[in-house]
């Protein structure tokens, strides 16, 4: 049953975020800011630049290894979203046929270069975003957003989404199982029953929302959720932020790969 698998997969990312490593302990605000700046830097490269993008893999690889996150888990999720990037870049090689590079005598058109540049940018940004979730607990991210003055209503929406996502999935899972237990072959699996299933799920959710609201009222809810403030910046957080942002800056402005290549060339000669 694919549904079961997907469900547990979702919980997996959440399990990972409850680990306790160096990266997990960094202040969520710092992680969000650094990751955001990282994405800005990556996106700022021109469309034919590939080699100078490569050193940027350092950041996701750092999060992956220091955060003790299994590579497979992240790779799978990146692949799932990859069609979007593929379709954005797929026509570049057809329309842009100017030969720009001829490494080892093979002509490479600008289209292929820009296509790969899109793919690399995609892998960098998406894997960073997924890793950010994997190394920061979701409530941590929400608290950070709240502290960074994101409107409270959005933060609370996110908190509730996170809390009830699992409950709702559990409910859906039980309904799907109940249907499967009583349907044989293709009978009982028509789109018609699926629509009913969804509508029942919606009604149940509305009823649940009502019960939750009651539970909130009975504990003194008056239209505002006050979130506790527990985040404290530590010395290491600042070091991490300044260190990584300086590194991004250097990598952006000096083509490190080219420099290494040039030095190697000189040494070999």
């Amino acid at each position, binding site marked *: 049953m694919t549904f079961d698998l997907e469900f547990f997969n979702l919980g997996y990312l959440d399990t990972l975020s409850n680990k306790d490593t160096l990266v997990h302990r960094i202040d969520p605000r710092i992680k969000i800011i650094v990751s955001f700046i990282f994405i800005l830097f990556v996106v700022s490269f021109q469309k034919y630049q590939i080699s100078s993008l490569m050193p940027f893999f350092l950041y996701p690889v750092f999060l992956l290894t220091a955060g003790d996150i299994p590579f497979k888990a992240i790779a799978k999720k990146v692949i799932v979203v990859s069609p979007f990037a593929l379709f954005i870049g797929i026509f570049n090689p057809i329309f842009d046929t100017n030969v720009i590079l001829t490494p080892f005598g093979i002509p490479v058109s600008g289209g292929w270069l820009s296509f790969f540049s899109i793919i690399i940018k995609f892998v960098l940004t998406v894997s960073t975003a997924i890793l950010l979730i994997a190394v920061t*607990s979701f409530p941590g991210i929400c608290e950070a957003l709240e502290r960074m003055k994101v409107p409270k209503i959005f933060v609370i929406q996110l*908190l509730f989404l996170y809390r*009830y996502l*699992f409950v709702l999935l559990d409910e859906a899972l039980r309904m799907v199982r109940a249907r499967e237990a009583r349907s044989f072959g293709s009978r009982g699996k028509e789109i018609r029953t699926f629509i009913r299933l969804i509508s029942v799920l919606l009604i149940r959710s509305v009823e649940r929302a009502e019960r939750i609201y009651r*539970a*909130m009222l009975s504990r*003194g809810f008056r239209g505002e959720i*006050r979130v*506790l403030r527990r985040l404290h910046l530590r010395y290491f957080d600042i070091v991490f932020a300044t260190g990584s942002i300086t590194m991004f800056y250097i990598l952006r402005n000096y083509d490190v790969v080219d420099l290494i290549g040039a030095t190697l060339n000189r040494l070999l000669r």
Partner: protein
Amino acid sequence: MSHHIVELKDVFYSYPDGTEALKGISFRVIHGESVGLVGTNGAGKTTLLLNLNGHLIPTRGEISIGEVPLSKGTRQEIRRKVGFVFQRPDDQLFMPIVYEDVAFGPINLGLSMEKVDERVNDALEMVGCLHLKNRPPHRLSEGQKRSVAIATVMAMKPDILVMDEPGSNLDPKSRRQLINLLKGFKHTKIIASHDLDMILDVCERCIIIKDGKIVADGSSEELLLNETLLEENNLELPLSRQYLYVKRPF
């Protein structure tokens, strides 16, 4: 302390769709008393409890809690006094982390952060769940969720505890722990349940409801061992008492 009295005078409640769920309920619960509310599914137990906390307002009749008459205006005040443990812990625990959930009530009471912290730790300690305080609720077992749900209410230091089916979906050991926990509370308690053994264990008084009316009100020992009364109301003897009446075939 005479002010933790719960008093209902001829309470009627009809749902907006016209279903009459309560038809003239009157009783009085004194301070420190624990009362079991028993009845079949759909007898009106949950409706009655929702009325006690002002989630529903009686269509007719009067409820007063700690000598404050319940109305739309006094709801907030009454909710401070009445701690409501809902039937489903997943509805009760709505914050992403156990600690924040338990803190939700005390923060809304306007307490200082140190006081909130103290209350949260005390309440979690009381139900034996202090080690769970940084866990998200969806990672807890049903029994743990239930205990935490009780802690969320205890952290508000209510005068009166109202519980809807606190023992459902629990394994025997968790259920026993819950019973011991409830016995330890000195609060006025009103507990609705189908678990008659639990009622017998925890509550000295019992009220049987059928079709929105009180059928019997008296000591648990007396009512819950009255086989004819129980059978008339689609209930049966608590399991722990059944062996006394087994007819031996020889």
